[in-house]
């Protein structure tokens, strides 16, 4: 690597820090202070250290913490593999040149525009007992009574509705990342493999996947972090029939005014996020984070 200047002056030496300082200060102020405050709220009561909030979380008959933890993980491990599989398939499909590809591409990434609340609303009305889907099936004579997707007795169907909505809404971001990664793998590599007689599966296994790994890692990190914070879609489609961590934080904060308990929920989500992020980085050897060096 060529050095920019022969001998960096003292000022030059500190330039990168000076350039980063404003952003870092800002983040520490607007994220660091709230986090410190959240920790304070979670573990104090009237100014003294207290585990009362933790107690409530784990032992109160009103707390749905364990169920929320269960459902958050269940949703994440159901939704993410489906999204990655679909996105991967779509990315390969769109890597083939066909007429109208650009227009199709725009349509497929449209869900990038939509917020979780709007997506939840749209799917709730599509699947409600006299919503679009049921109206369609009834009028086609396929069913006589509506299919129920919502309600405590139908929690499995609610779970399905959440999965459908999340797959519809958030597969686009996985697709965009994987597609971008795929486009950068030079066609020459693949052609060379073809010349040497590699079949489709071998080409995928030994050429495409290894080169796609950084994209996959980025997509997985982004999706997992957001999946752990899942809230809007669940709140609209299932209410508290299916409790999730962020939803319980919201409920404790807004409905019950238990700020300390809400803060613990938030800290738990943050803790799991950091752990999962670190795990991914280890697994994928942190190539993504070294980008740009």
């Amino acid at each position, binding site marked *: 690597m060529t050095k920019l200047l022969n001998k960096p002056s003292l000022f030059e030496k500190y330039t990168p820090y000076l350039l980063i300082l404003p952003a870092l200060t800002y983040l520490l102020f607007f994220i660091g202070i709230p986090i410190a405050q959240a920790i304070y709220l979670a573990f104090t009561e009237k100014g003294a250290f207290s585990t009362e909030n933790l107690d409530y979380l784990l032992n109160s*008959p*009103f707390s749905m913490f364990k169920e929320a933890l269960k459902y958050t993980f269940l949703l994440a491990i159901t939704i993410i593999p489906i999204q990655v599989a679909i996105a991967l398939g779509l990315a390969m499909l769109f890597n083939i040149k066909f007429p109208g590809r650009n227009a199709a591409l725009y349509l497929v990434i449209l869900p990038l525009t939509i917020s979780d609340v709007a997506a939840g609303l749209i799917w*709730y009305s599509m699947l*409600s*007992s*006299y919503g679009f889907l049921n109206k369609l099936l009834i009028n086609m004579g396929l069913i*006589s*009574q*509506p299919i*129920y997707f*919502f*309600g*405590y*007795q*139908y929690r499995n169907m*609610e779970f399905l509705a959440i999965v459908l909505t999340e797959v519809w809404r958030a597969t686009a971001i996985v697709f965009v990342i994987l597609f971008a990664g795929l486009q950068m793998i030079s066609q020459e590599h693949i052609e060379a493999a073809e010349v040497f007689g590699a079949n489709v599966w071998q080409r995928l296994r030994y050429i495409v996947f290894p080169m796609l790994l950084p994209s996959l890692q980025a997509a997985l990190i982004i999706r997992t972090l957001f999946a752990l914070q899942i809230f809007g879609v669940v*709140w609209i*489609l*299932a*209410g*508290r*029939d299916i409790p999730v961590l962020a939803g319980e934080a919201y*409920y404790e904060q807004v*409905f*019950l*005014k238990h700020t300390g308990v809400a803060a613990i929920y938030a800290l738990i989500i943050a803790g799991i996020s950091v752990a999962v992020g670190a795990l991914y980085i280890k697994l994928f050897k942190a190539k993504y984070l070294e980008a740009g060096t």
Partner: protein
Amino acid sequence: MSEALTKLQALIIAIIVIAAIGGGVAWYYMQQPKGVKIIWASTQLVPAQEQAFVKDTLLKEFTEETGIEVEFVPISYEDLATRLQSEEEAGKVTISVIGELHGGIDYFASQGWLEDLSKFGTLPDRTFPQVLEDYSRLHGIKAYIPWMTATYVMVVNKKAFDYLPEGLTEDDVIHGTSKWTYDALLAWAKKLYEETGGPKLGFPAGPNGLFVRFLHGYLYPAFTGAQVKNFNSDDAVALWEYLKNLWQYVHPSSTTWDAMADPLLKEEVWIAWDHTARIKDAIVQKPDQFVVVPVPAGPKGRGFILVIAGLAIPKGAPDQDAAWKLIEYLTRPETQVKVLENVGFFPTVKEASAKITSGPLKVLADGVNNQLNTPDALVALIPSLGAKGGDFKNVYITAFQRIVLNNEDIKTVLDELAPQLLSLFEETGAPLPPPDSMSG
């Protein structure tokens, strides 16, 4: 251009700017003392549309008529209580009129922060129902003037009347006779379920729904005679057994519904219970399709919640005459009809009903009126627990989830939750709400 000139120019510009600012400020202050300006702090009509109605219509007309400027300050109960306390303690009151629910005013009056409104005499040309007159006298003073009311009622799609159970007539339901009971509702819901092939009764039991009010303000008074006191009594066990029974015929999506207007309009359900404001849209869309009816009665009476908002004047408030004029204006029959039309709160003066002649609002107002005038009416008020209000609701919601949805043992759940419920009242020092405080 020489430097000196620039300096001179700068000086001139500076002088002009300072003069302009000074002049502007002086002009601004000269505009001020033209009329009286009072502050009206309200915990009601806070949503954006409602605020817009208050500022752009209601208060504009008042100012045109009287020349009194009113600054409408939407505020939460907690903020209002804190602010009032500090103002009263400092002896420097800025708020002239308070708009709050019965429970909050009850607390303010108990602290001695309110003027006795009887010193202003009576308001002409309007009569308040006796129940409102009684409730507005608190802690030895006339604490507030009843301003608006709201309640929760049942809405029936007229189609459902074709499936009435044996011994119940349409008239029984509409006028809330002694035959319109919870047992009759169960029989009706069952018949509807069996003969139409699906559940036709619904409740707003979603995360933002108000179903919890049905539990503590309707079923509890009707079955146990009180909202809180008899939480885990034998009567309460009978209540939950009834609800479990009824729930077989309740639309399963109920646990995701926040408001019943849409399920009614889509005919997902034919009978629904909800807050008047949340079914209004259904009735406005199809006024001929729906009837608003009183709720059924239980063994202890026809329990229902009456939400009362009142207007009060803080002790030592400035411009009290202007404040009284505002109260007079807000309780005029024609103003109250306007409030009903725009924000859906019901009048507190009898003369207002006569001014609504037809249309969807008439359907609503009739239903509310019929409910208020049933002979076995057992009015419940929402307790004022401030920040603990959420915990209060959570007790009843948790009981519902565990008993009805999760099928846990009734007595065990109730015994476990009862101390939690009572501790809320002990911690806050709030009185038990009516009807608990009425009966012995």
